[in-house]
């Protein structure tokens, strides 16, 4: 694609009562600028879902540019529900690829804790169909539950059959100093966790939290001169599906996820066998299973078996959620997709510490909006 990553930044993911949305964004941007050894960029893309609803603050492009000492720079907010982060990177890539922008910074930021309780639950449902889903009282967790119940029904499964996803996520999160949850999860405790939306329980669902992550991209030629370890963007693709689950011809098939993976693989000229790790959108365990199926790592109805059989661990066939995933690293909605990119890039640089997937050369990140109504897939590769 002739676009490379030259800078990475991220904050811890947790409840940060003393930190505002502008500070969160700045901390990630500052880290990314330091990492790239530069002080400014030509364009700024801010991925965010909920600042208007939870912090009464829109216009994040100007706000973040101003606060980050980049007054005057082109800047805009990118919104695609919990796919906002991945989509912000997509815009940065398009900008650089167009030739109109030399160096672009994409930051995903979400400030979840300016409100609490039912207000946050309502806001998280803003990515659903307001008139025909949310107005019936459906929540994001409820959406995950409708998918999970049907998946269990069609494939004859119990809640405990999904345990492997969260056990893996927590095992990896335990090795990530920035993760929200660093405790290991006992498989036998999984199915008895308190219910959020039956059958989705607290151990199925990723926790909402504050966080920000940033990535700086520029052309491949320029990147080679700027940093010792540029990471190449080998594939970048977006697809959409019906916004409401009830309008899907096949509720248990993530068509947008499948389409975006196929496009990204074709751009990168690789097959799924060559993908060394996959940061997928495990906001619910069932979405992890469905994402593995849509990407082609498992047959239909067999995604959960990869978790059961230990294929998703660091040394498994397809390592996922290598820094804890949404489940254990935490899910700052509009920032989540940017964490995925930072994590894949760290793996490819060999800077993943205890989370390192040995010899990782090609990594894939997929960021979903709600139930896969938006799917953003990126394939990153060690620069040759």
């Amino acid at each position, binding site marked *: 694609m002739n676009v490379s990553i030259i800078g990475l930044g991220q904050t811890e993911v947790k409840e940060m009562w003393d930190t505002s949305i502008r500070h969160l964004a700045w901390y990630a941007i500052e880290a990314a600028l330091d990492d790239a050894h530069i002080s400014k960029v030509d364009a700024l893309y801010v991925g965010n879902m909920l600042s208007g609803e939870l912090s009464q603050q829109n216009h994040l492009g100007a706000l973040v540019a101003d606060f980050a000492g980049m007054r005057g720079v082109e800047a805009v907010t990118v919104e695609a529900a919990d796919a906002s982060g991945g989509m912000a990177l997509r815009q940065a890539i398009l900008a650089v690829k167009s030739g109109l922008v030399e160096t672009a910074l994409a930051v995903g930021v979400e400030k979840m804790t300016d409100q609490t309780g*039912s207000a946050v639950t*309502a806001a998280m449902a803003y990515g659903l169909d307001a*008139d025909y889903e949310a107005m019936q009282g*459906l929540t994001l967790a409820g959406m995950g539950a409708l998918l999970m*119940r049907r998946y269990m029904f069609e494939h004859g499964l119990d809640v405990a059959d999904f345990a492997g996803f969260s056990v893996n996520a927590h095992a990896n999160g335990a090795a990530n100093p920035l993760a929200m949850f660093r405790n290991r999860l006992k498989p036998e405790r999984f199915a008895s966790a308190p219910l959020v939306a039956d*059958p989705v329980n607290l151990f199925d669902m990723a926790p909402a939290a504050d966080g920000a992550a940033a990535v700086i991209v520029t052309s491949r030629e320029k990147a080679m001169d700027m940093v010792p370890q540029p990471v190449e963007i080998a594939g970048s693709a977006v697809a959409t599906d019906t916004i409401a*689950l009830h*309008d899907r011809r096949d509720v248990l098939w993530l068509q947008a996820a499948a389409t975006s993976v196929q496009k990204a693989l074709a751009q990168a000229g690789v097959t799924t066998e060559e993908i060394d790790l996959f940061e997928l959108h495990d906001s619910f365990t069932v979405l992890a299973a469905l994402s593995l199926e849509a990407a082609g790592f498992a047959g239909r109805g067999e995604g959960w078996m990869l978790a059961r059989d230990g294929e998703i661990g660091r040394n498994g066939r397809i390592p996922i959620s290598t820094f804890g995933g949404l489940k254990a690293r935490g899910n700052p909605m509009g920032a989540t997709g940017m964490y995925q990119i930072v994590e894949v890039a760290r793996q490819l640089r060999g800077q993943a510490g205890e989370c390192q997937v040995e010899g990782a050369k090609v990594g894939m990140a997929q960021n979903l909006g709600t139930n896969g109504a938006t799917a953003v897939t990126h394939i990153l590769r060690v620069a040759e």
Partner: protein
Amino acid sequence: MEVSRHWRLQAQRYQLVGETCDSCGVKLFPPRDVCLECEAPAQELYTFTGLGEIYSYTTIYDAPAGFEHNAPYMVALIKLEEGPLVTAQLTDMDPSEAQIGMPVEMVTRKLRTDGEEGMIVYGYKFRPAVKELTAV
């Protein structure tokens, strides 16, 4: 709450008025003007019978603002006898009774309120079927 936003959906909320595609004949709910199947214009109104069966369901414990007083409550995907799925609350039943494939029918109920002085939004919910499925 936004009065006009709910007022303009009264035919859908109270009567399950959707559409039939002029081109391929598929029935659509919610109405969407461009057919989901063949992408031709679909603007002929069709009132659904309100009969169907449960396709998937959940009980929501962590309720969003405006629904707290109902929690826990059940939301389902209902497969209408004409074909489409619709997202709706289940009512007049205990969560332990629900199962996939269970026949249900539409009723009109209070969806949410907005405080003592605010608007009350009514709309469709589904309950265990009293009527038999009709042949469509």
